[in-house]
């Protein structure tokens, strides 16, 4: 009972904080710019992508459609969304320490673990709102402006065309695994937040870790190749697997498992630290 009251409080706090709307505003702005650019100059962009294939393939119908726009938006934004999420989730514990409210919060008759999970749940809900907003803008507004159609995806093996009727579940699952990878970011920033007494530290540290792991993940060095599959950043783009044909099920399950293991491990560290923390601020 107290856990749900605490979770409700955390929702209220996130909803009342001005910084919570930065993410939503930024996504709206970026998507609006992408939509405007594609509306005005999309066809030349498409011709540039399809040019190498035009000698062997004939393209019919509207290639530039809402589904392609949604795919492009997902691909572009998924790299930047972690910063917008960390802006809020990295502040959940350290922000209370910086403001001094943690003293009052932790003298209430509710366990520290419950408070932390309340914050975590609220952070996950915020992450979901950000992704749903992105999905709404990408899919609904994209289809409204550009219409529906088959999706043409360019990957390392070449061009794949996925038919319109086969796309809904792929987008749904793609958003699902993208959500899992964003939960991973929330968990990381929340854990770092438990170690900090200021808001900026966990946010910057989260981004630094993502950048570092991404660089390690792309370096073709034999000694690093062994750890690359275990870095969470290597699985942040696994949503794209749902747009492969045939579906790489094993790869998708592996990615989900690695992300879940990371989330569990980080959450355990956060619970341990938060429970042992002396409140000196």
């Amino acid at each position, binding site marked *: 009972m107290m856990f749900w009251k605490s979770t409700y409080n955390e929702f209220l706090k996130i909803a009342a904080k001005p910084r919570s709307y930065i993410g939503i505003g930024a996504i709206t702005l970026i998507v609006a710019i992408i939509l405007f650019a594609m509306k005005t100059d999309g066809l030349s962009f498409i011709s540039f992508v399809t040019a190498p294939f035009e000698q062997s393939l004939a393209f019919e119908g509207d290639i530039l459609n809402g589904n392609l726009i949604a795919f492009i938006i997902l691909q572009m934004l998924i790299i930047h969304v972690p910063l917008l999420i960390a802006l809020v989730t990295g502040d959940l514990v350290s922000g209370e320490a910086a403001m001094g409210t943690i003293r*009052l919060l*932790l003298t*209430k*008759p509710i366990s520290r673990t419950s408070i932390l999970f309340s914050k975590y749940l609220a952070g996950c809900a915020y992450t979901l709102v950000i992704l749903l907003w992105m999905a709404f803008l990408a899919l609904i507004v994209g289809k409204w402006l550009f219409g529906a159609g088959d999706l043409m995806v360019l990957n390392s093996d070449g061009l794949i065309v996925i038919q319109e009727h086969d796309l809904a579940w792929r987008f749904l699952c793609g958003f699902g695994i993208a959500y899992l990878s964003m939960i991973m970011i929330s968990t990381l920033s929340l854990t770092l937040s438990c170690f900090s007494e200021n808001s900026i530290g966990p946010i910057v540290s989260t981004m630094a870790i993502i950048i570092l792991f991404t660089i390690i993940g792309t370096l073709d060095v034999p000694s690093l190749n062994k750890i690359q599959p275990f870095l969470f950043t290597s699985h942040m783009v696994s949503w794209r697997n749902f747009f492969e044909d045939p579906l790489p099920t094993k790869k998708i399950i592996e990615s989900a498992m690695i992300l879940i293991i990371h989330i569990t491990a980080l959450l355990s560290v956060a619970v341990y630290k938060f429970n042992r923390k*002396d409140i000196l601020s």
Partner: protein
Amino acid sequence: MTATDEKIVEIKHLEKSYGKFKAVTDVSFDVYRGDVFGFLGPNGAGKSTTIRTMLSLIRPTSGELKLFGKNLLSDRNYILGKIGCIVEKPDFYKYLSAEKNIELFARLSGVTVTKSKVHQIIEFVGLKGREKDKLNGFSHGMKQRLGIAQTLIHDPELIILDEPTTGLDPQGIIDIRNLILQLKNEHNKTILLSSHILSEIELIANRMVIINKGKSIIQGSVKDLLNAQELIVSFSVDDINKAKQVLDNASMANLIDTVEQTSLLLHLSQEKIPIINKLFCDNNINVFSIEAKRKLEDYFLKLIKG
């Protein structure tokens, strides 16, 4: 309400270390139901560390902490449910209104509060009309009042106020002091009040403990501790040597505590002040001023300086 024999706080040999640094080395005291208990000590004596430990904000290194007859480490939530507190300055969510802040903390205190109860409490602390205002525009004094409102919302048995008058202007100090007295007299609360100002404790508390350098030094009834103590009386006179001689002739040299450039410090009871004054006057020694300080106050000031 008078204090009873029921101990609601029992702290024995509390110790808290951070690595090699010992913030609290040996603090022991008891608070009885109905007490307004003064927790006195100079800055850095370990008051806040002790209070934070009592509220489970800090884990003790060793010692026994029992509140309401239960162990803090094993019955944390039960104990915290019966306490309302302000630890150092009262900080709230600046982006929420006063009303929303109170509601938010009330929810976590395990009680269901109505809007009218929230408004009633806000009115009690003198913030009527500011319920909907965000805390961005609140002064320190207003936040302190809201902090007291927050401590009362779940009708706790024990209220812990850590230096509640720090940073307030003189009027703010009087207002907060009156609020505390109101809590004691009208709401029958047990109050633990920490301060580094003896006069503040003297005005409000019925029992107290003094701590210094992480150790409790003395505890008991404020009345007994202050009245039982002899006074240190400073006689400012025109001729120190003659005054010393007069006291010597009257077999009172043993009363002399310290000889300063223009004054003699004597330790004596209140009744002896006019006798000494008359003695000096009869011997043509001009007395410019007489200033009496309690030994405890002097002792406490020495602690602060020392």
